[in-house]
């Protein structure tokens, strides 16, 4: 592996690397965000307690079966095959002509959603039952409880898992070159193919991947600390003087 060669290669090919990295980032950022939303939604639905009424119970059961099938199906099959089926299959069977980039984002989103749904389930499991009860006791329904009390706590706990998923997405976009999306990995392979070198182009790609993933890690760490809230609280007003109920009533 020679350094001059690498520098020369970068000089010659940097637009290819950069555009590839840009496409990778675009697909993985949007895919992760949409996927996270899907995962949270699935988490909310899958934790709905069994309703009393029969009609509702059957409806919920049906939705749950659909959700579980969705999760198991997309987790359970390779994304490359999904990509081929969705992109080429939809054209074959229905003559639908999808934009490659949109197809890529859709595929990454629904895959991420399936994985995130499981993270959310684990996260909800780890929340103290008292938090649910307190929310129910003030009259919140399931959705309100999840949105206002449970999920904000879950999100913080699953941020590391989300980071993992984001990083996996950055790397997994590479399989999307079967539908002709020219992201970083495909571009690197191209450079490797035409330069008859392997380690050098992939070395550069690794650095680009690493810069992207590490940036993501740092951003998520920052959010983690933010969500933690301030370590100390500041007191308001004058030194403690327990208010008399009587006084309060007057005011």
């Amino acid at each position, binding site marked *: 592996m020679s350094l001059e060669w690498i520098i020369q290669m970068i000089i*010659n*090919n940097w*637009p*290819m690397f950069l*555009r590839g990295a*840009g*496409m990778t980032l*675009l697909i993985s950022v949007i895919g992760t965000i949409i996927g996270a939303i899907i995962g949270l939604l699935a988490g909310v639905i899958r934790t709905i307690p069994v309703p009393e009424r029969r009609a509702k119970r059957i409806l919920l059961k049906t939705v749950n079966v659909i959700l579980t099938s969705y999760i198991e199906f997309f987790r359970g099959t390779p994304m490359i095959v999904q990509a*081929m089926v969705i*992109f*080429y*299959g939809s*054209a*074959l069977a229905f*003559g639908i*002509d999808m*934009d*490659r*980039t*949109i197809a890529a984002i859709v595929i990454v989103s629904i895959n991420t959603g399936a994985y995130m749904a499981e993270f959310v389930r684990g996260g909800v499991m780890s929340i103290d039952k008292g938090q649910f009860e307190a929310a129910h006791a003030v009259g919140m329904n399931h959705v309100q409880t999840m949105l206002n009390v449970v999920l904000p706590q879950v999100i913080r706990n699953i941020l590391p898992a989300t980071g993992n998923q984001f990083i996996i997405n950055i790397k997994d976009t590479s399989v999307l*070159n*079967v*539908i*002709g999306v*020219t992201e970083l990995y*495909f*571009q690197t*392979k*191209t*450079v*490797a*193919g*035409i*330069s*008859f*070198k*392997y*380690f050098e182009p992939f070395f550069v790609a690794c650095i680009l991947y690493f810069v992207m993933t590490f940036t993501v890690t740092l951003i998520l760490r920052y959010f983690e600390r933010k969500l933690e809230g301030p370590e100390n609280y500041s007191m308001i007003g004058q030194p403690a003087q327990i208010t008399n109920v009587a006084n309060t009533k007057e005011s």
Partner: protein
Amino acid sequence: ACGTKESGSTTSSEGEGEQKEVLRVGMEAGYPPFNWTQLDDANGGVKIEGNAEYAGGYDVEIAKKIAEGLGKELVIVKTEWDGLVPSLQSGKIDVITAGMSPTEERKESIDFSDNYYTSNFVMIVKKGSKYENATSIQDFSGAKITGQLNTSHYGVIDQIEGVNKQPASDNFPAMRVALESGVIDGYVSERPEGISASSANPNFVMVEFTEGFVADEEETAVAAGLKKDSELVDKINEILADISEEERQNIMDAAIKNQPAAE
């Protein structure tokens, strides 16, 4: 974020692509000298759809001639090898020119034009190795040999008696690394790739055989892939017939000279 819009607008007319005077040709754009990716339109490079780069190489030159003969505008679609056939079948592209051999099995799924290049099998080995001066494939008895997955390169290895056949590799760069690292002793390839590889990497030597692999012509030939029962077959064959053997050799020589790594 590059090229999203372009890709959207050019593919929007898919389905009635023929009327729009566009010929969509699929290739990996990463298999020199047949096809590669370059940054500008030097040496007759053609813009890649939905992308800022250009494709060049022998396949591109042939595709240009086909497009010209059909009176259509050439659009190159860069797709992974495994995506080429589904792409063709689903109508995302009209033609494959990707150094693809018209084997019997492939013919079950897609149609092929007449051959537009014929080469022969060679072996790529490391310079200075004991195989450097081999003349017969049987000299590779006991050697660790591999070839590209899903190609006839891999299949013909069995003709070497006592060969230590290694698992196939799904791309050339990986095989080159394997060779360079000494994990394998050689890989089967075709002459053009062999010339490119050995000229690009001084550690590699291409071995040409006097007693070579026995193969049907279809296994070393290269033809354009077309959708089954495509009406383009006859027209393309006519166009290809107009390219003389000499001209083909000239185009290939130019491609080998122009390929990015050869500079």
